[in-house]
């Protein structure tokens, strides 16, 4: 157990310690502890390596995409859980279909579509398809959560004159916080780490997220390992921190999902 845990953590610790070594010591000094940390690497990465821009882009994309997913999927999930309208079940199954059917070549057609719409190399062209990609799972999760909320609460709100939109916004959404947290964390992890679409769609450095930026930097400065490692730390530390803060929720989510599914 301890050995496997070490194997899990060691590459990360090594990445962090290497990011604090200098170009000359990084290949000779294989130890984990760095006596004279070279913070300069981070400044170089942030300014010269463009990682500042990549980082802000990643933050922007993550907030925009996950925000969009939460808003759109919760609206739809509420409708599927509580409202009555024709073709409800058909539409629900249709929206969930991507969870069952793998379409490995989908990105080719997506590229063609975005090209036609003039959205290649734009922020919106990177954001919209990813909002769509996150919808199925989020709608599924939120719908089953909304269904568990007691109807009495909504009935009393309706008697008090609350509209359906008001019930959704003031009652169901706040009550669904645990489910929303799972939806948010999963999609943040996914969006932050996304690479394939970023590679296909974005070609301007000023638009790229961190994953893409790392590959660009790796291609241009193959041997500048300490700076590369600093860039990787910039890409990794926020997500690991988020995971450590939210890990209870994440683990519970997977465990609950696995037993049900």
């Amino acid at each position: 157990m301890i050995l496997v845990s070490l194997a899990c953590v060691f590459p990360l610790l090594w990445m962090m310690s290497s990011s604090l070594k200098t170009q000359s010591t990084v290949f000779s000094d294989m130890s984990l502890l760095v006596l004279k940390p070279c913070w300069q690497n981070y400044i170089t990465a942030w300014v010269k390596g463009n990682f500042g821009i990549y980082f802000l882009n990643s933050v922007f994309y993550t907030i925009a995409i996950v925000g969009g997913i939460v808003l759109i999927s919760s609206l739809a999930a509420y409708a599927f859980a509580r409202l009555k309208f024709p073709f409800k079940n058909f539409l629900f199954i249709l929206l969930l279909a991507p969870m069952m059917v793998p379409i490995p070549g989908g990105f080719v057609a997506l590229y063609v579509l975005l090209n036609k719409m003039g959205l290649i190399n734009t922020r919106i062209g990177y954001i919209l398809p990813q909002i769509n990609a996150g919808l199925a799972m989020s709608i599924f999760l939120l719908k089953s959560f909304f269904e568990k909320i007691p109807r009495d609460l909504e009935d009393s709100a309706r008697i008090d004159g609350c509209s359906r939109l008001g019930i959704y916004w003031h009652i169901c959404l706040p009550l669904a916080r645990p489910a929303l947290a799972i939806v948010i964390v999963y999609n943040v992890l996914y969006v932050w780490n996304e690479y394939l679409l970023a590679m296909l769609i974005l070609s301007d450095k000023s638009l790229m997220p961190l994953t893409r930026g790392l590959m660009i930097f790796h291609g241009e400065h193959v041997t500048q390992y300490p700076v590369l490692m600093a860039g990787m730390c910039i890409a990794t530390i926020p997500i690991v921190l988020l995971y450590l803060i939210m890990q209870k929720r994440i683990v519970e989510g997977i465990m609950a999902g696995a037993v049900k599914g």
Partner: protein
Amino acid sequence: MNSKKIRTFRSYLFILPALLLFIIFSIYPFIKIFQLSVYSWDGIMPTMNFVGFFNFKDIIFHNPIWWRSIGQAGYITLIALTFQNVLALILALICDRGIKFGQGYRVIFFIPPVLSGIVVGLIWNWIYNGNYGLLNHWLVQLSKWTHISCFANLQRAWLAEPKTALTAVAVINMWKGFGWGFLILLAGLQSIPRQLYEAAKVDGANAWQSFRRITVPLMIPTFGIVSILTILGAMQIYDIIASTTNGGPAYHTEVPITRILSAMQGNLQFGYACAMGLVFGVVLLSVSLIQIRLSRKLNPVAV
């Protein structure tokens, strides 16, 4: 009746944004793949040549590299299915016993799956490096320590040599993926009622017997979920490949996704790339159908 119509209309407004995005970015591309797959098109010209099933014929009968890429993804998947999931199961079994720091291990094992495939690939790129990689460094230390020279002789550029590249990538994939299997398996184990084990103990069953007769049969649905997720994930591996070997050396780590991308971006054969995607989709679908059949057959409860 008019007010009812308005109500229905307003209900639709709730799902309208989701539906719009879905139609534009899921349904349209889905149809487009089928359409493009029967054309020869470079992705730029306004004219497309209709070629019928030529793309499919060429992929299926005249594209050995394509089938090789599927085989190599299959190899990565096989390693993930066997070594990775067996390791995950053993660890989950130990954790299920309620050892010290069980919670802590759970947290640590799930760190690699949280990371981006790009970051993971780049770290391992360096570990495997032939000149100043950590793995070679350790091999030298090990042989100095044990005075056995063959460890030092194992030194190589792991990702650049045809013999080791694919396995090296498979190991990275394993490192990144076993946390998932571990968590799901642990969840499955914890859902088994403890009384069953106690009853077996009273009846004189040893540890192996109760594992064989209680744990395994009750875990079959969970094994099914884990293997489907492993297969779908590993077959479509891309980020790790892109950040380590990018298909090289000499096609030794090509996988379907890299082939589709290179048909699209490298050769500008958009129709061909779509056809590849469809062929690959059919492969994936049939593998998961077989898998579902298998686990149904093995599952005594769900028959």
